């Protein structure tokens, strides 16, 4: 059966602000899945809370809109239960770097075969514009007219410090490139971290299209970790593309000794088991 992009549409009217980066991110996501020939029923989305999470009813697929900061561990549990489904976790910079940063760190080192989309709009937007660790320093934000006191987190530097198997950066204003990045991320066997620089015309007017266009520099797929680190720490340019990919790192499930040679998924295995062999210690 031919899969069409409209298969991914739902009848729910989008509630994002005009010009919100989420429109394009959803478009790129749908396009990528269609091009990968995946039907909605082959995909599991784990949505966080926030503006990105409000997309949970605006794309078809098996979806969970869970708790703030917890999109990653729920996605991991889903993936381990049935690897035949493509699992995509979607989270904002607030949920990912604040409420649930431990999950990001441990998921990178565990290298679960799922895809993570970090919607980085540099603020907590759904709660009307609070500071995150990617907010521009000195910028007036909710409750803080003088801007933030704390320092920043550079997502690329953080992820690359953990020896990831896949880190890419895209931009919500470039659907073509973002589609390709998401496709590569979903195909990659391992934890694919995709940071998406996302326009937020309501609470982050400074980071607009002109801002990004003046700084973005596209790169080809790279597998040199030193180069990758130099890309993400560059203060003047914003490099986009597959910043780092290492296919040699095995994914978590493949390394499980007791699952080697098993043909079934955990979802196919629920039945009574004998405990004869494990009664004694």
């Amino acid at each position, binding site marked *: 059966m031919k899969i069409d992009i409209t298969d991914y549409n*739902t009848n*729910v009217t989008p509630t994002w602000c005009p010009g919100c980066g989420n429109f394009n991110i959803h478009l790129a996501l749908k396009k990528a899945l269609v091009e990968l020939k995946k*039907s*909605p*029923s*082959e995909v*599991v989305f*784990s949505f966080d*809370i926030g503006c990105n999470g*409000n997309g*949970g*009813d605006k794309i*078809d*697929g*098996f*979806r*969970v*809109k*869970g*708790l703030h900061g*917890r999109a990653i*561990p*729920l*996605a*991991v*549990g*889903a*993936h*381990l*239960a*049935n690897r*035949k*489904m493509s699992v995509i976790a979607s989270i904002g910079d607030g949920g990912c770097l604040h409420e649930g940063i*431990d*999950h990001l*760190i*441990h998921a990178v080192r565990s290298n679960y075969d799922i895809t993570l989309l970090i919607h980085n709009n540099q603020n907590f937007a759904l709660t009307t514009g609070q500071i995150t660790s990617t907010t521009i320093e000195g910028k007036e934000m909710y409750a803080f007219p003088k801007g933030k006191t704390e320092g920043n987190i550079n997502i690329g530097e953080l992820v690359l410090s953990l020896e990831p198997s896949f880190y890419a950066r895209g931009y919500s204003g470039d659907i073509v490139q973002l589609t390709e990045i998401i496709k590569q991320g979903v195909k990659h066997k391992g934890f694919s971290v995709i940071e998406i620089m996302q326009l937020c015309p309501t609470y982050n007017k400074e980071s607009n299209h002109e801002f990004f266009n003046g700084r973005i520099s596209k790169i080809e797929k790279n597998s040199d970790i030193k180069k990758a680190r130099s890309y993400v720490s560059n203060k003047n340019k914003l490099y986009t593309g597959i910043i780092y990919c290492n296919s040699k790192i095995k994914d978590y499930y493949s390394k*499980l*000794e*007791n*699952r080697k040679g*098993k043909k079934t*998924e*955990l*979802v196919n*295995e*629920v*039945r*009574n*088991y004998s*405990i004869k*062999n*494990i*009664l004694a*210690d």
Partner: protein
Amino acid sequence: MKNRFSVKFGGRSGQGINTLGEFLSKALKNSGYVTFAYREYPSIIKGGFASYQIDVSSEPIFASSKYTDFLLCMTDESFDKYVNTVTKGGVVIHSIKDLKINEEDEKYIKKNKIKVIYLDAIDIAQKNDAPVIMANIVILGAFWKSINLELKVLDKIVLDYFSKKKGVDLEAEKRCLKAGYELDTIKDLKGRNLPKKKRKNWNSSLILTGNDGIALGAVVAGCRAYYAYPMTPATSILLKLGNTYMDTGIIVKQAESEITAVQMVLGSMYMGTRAFTATSGGGYDLMTESLSFSGMSEIPLVIVLSQRAGASTGVPTWTGASDLDIAVHAGHGDFPRCVMSVSDATDAYELIQDAFNIAEEYQISVTLLTEKQISESLFNIKTLPQPKKIKRGLVKNGQKRYEITSNGISPRWIPQKGKKTYLSNSDEHDEYGISTEDEKEIVEMSEKRRRKMDTLKKKLPQPKYYGDEKPTLVFVGMGSTKNVVLDAMPLTKKRLGYLHYQYIYPLKFEKILELNKQGVKIVLIENNQEGGFGKLIKEEADFYIPNTLRKYDGRPFFVDDILEYIKK
């Protein structure tokens, strides 16, 4: 105590007390006796005082007596701690050089005619070309002789155990055991004897902890993933499932936090396999937002809550039962849930199976309570019951995942290629899972979820009654309190009863009201300070039980506690 015998091994953490306790339990079992073994240890790796007490009987027993007939002691700290728990005419065998006994203990020893025997166990071990650590094996051998059981039974257990360990000198172990067994000082020792009656074919019986029961029951029930963060006294579930994972094929994951663990369970359960997690009070607190999420999204969830003593970090390696309240009430907003409580290894094995069935059929969270006393004590049972039937309440495919139904249960199907997709939402939602803020839909959907509680309550079994047909006093309780009251029953002429709750919430309280109508004295027995179960009964049944027996010193109820209470 009539028909019971007890022995306690005392020392410090790091002296192999655990291993010795297990050896003794197994050897006594293989000699035809029923055992119950209770463990005390500090929350440190080396030092403090640790003990293993093994109660022995000809009949099934499930609790400890407060006093011990034999104390085997390796450090002065444990001597000081435990000597005043030795029975009249009892025996202490110790290996403490230059032991100084304080005045009070000296008085107690004299008054109760306790024999205190010193063995230079370290010297004996060294003379037998064995390392100092094997002094404990010398004492074990000496004790075995003093109760006149066959050496080869114990010998086999010790050697079986150490042959699996690397770098242990098996011959030295053997020599130490024999040296202790053949000591002259022990030969003529007259202590209390073991019960006369032995059980036939009892060597094929099982020795399991409550946590073993949970792990085994989960395997039987088709659980395929276990995600957990270490926390005493739940940790040994991880041990059992981890050590057996090559056999079972279960994915066992030590997660980076309790929140991760419970979220992974939710992800796996959403996908349609069976998974669970276990923790203690602190970890459960961290999981409570997820409990609320499970309630709203109707994703089945199973959490084992193994209780320990005290608030905050409390006394982490000691027992208590103060967490019923969080199991029933934790988590924001209104949502349905189920709370159950295990009492022993068999119960644990059966109830975890029920927990999966109820979680899946009713699409709710099930919190299965246990206590350190149950999780880590060794229960000696003939065999485990047959597996329970797996009930999942799944449909093949559907349209409205959150359809409004009269019993509150909506169709649930496994996410799979070709099936109707759906959204499971932490937002309030309509029948398709789509977020809503409509007042009518909010009420309809939350009332639908509430109806699951009524449906479940009707289906849940009544509490189990044990004891006299015409009782004058009935204890009402849950968890390990059952074990101690049942153990006390044959030791008293009083007409005792015990009403045992396995299925706690939603609460079936009719039997309590019936007992009250009959004019029976009802006593709530709880291993806590605040009386959480009594509060729940008051809340649900509007019935207040004034008589309570509570204990909250980190220790379980001992059989003597019950006997003393009913004497009053």
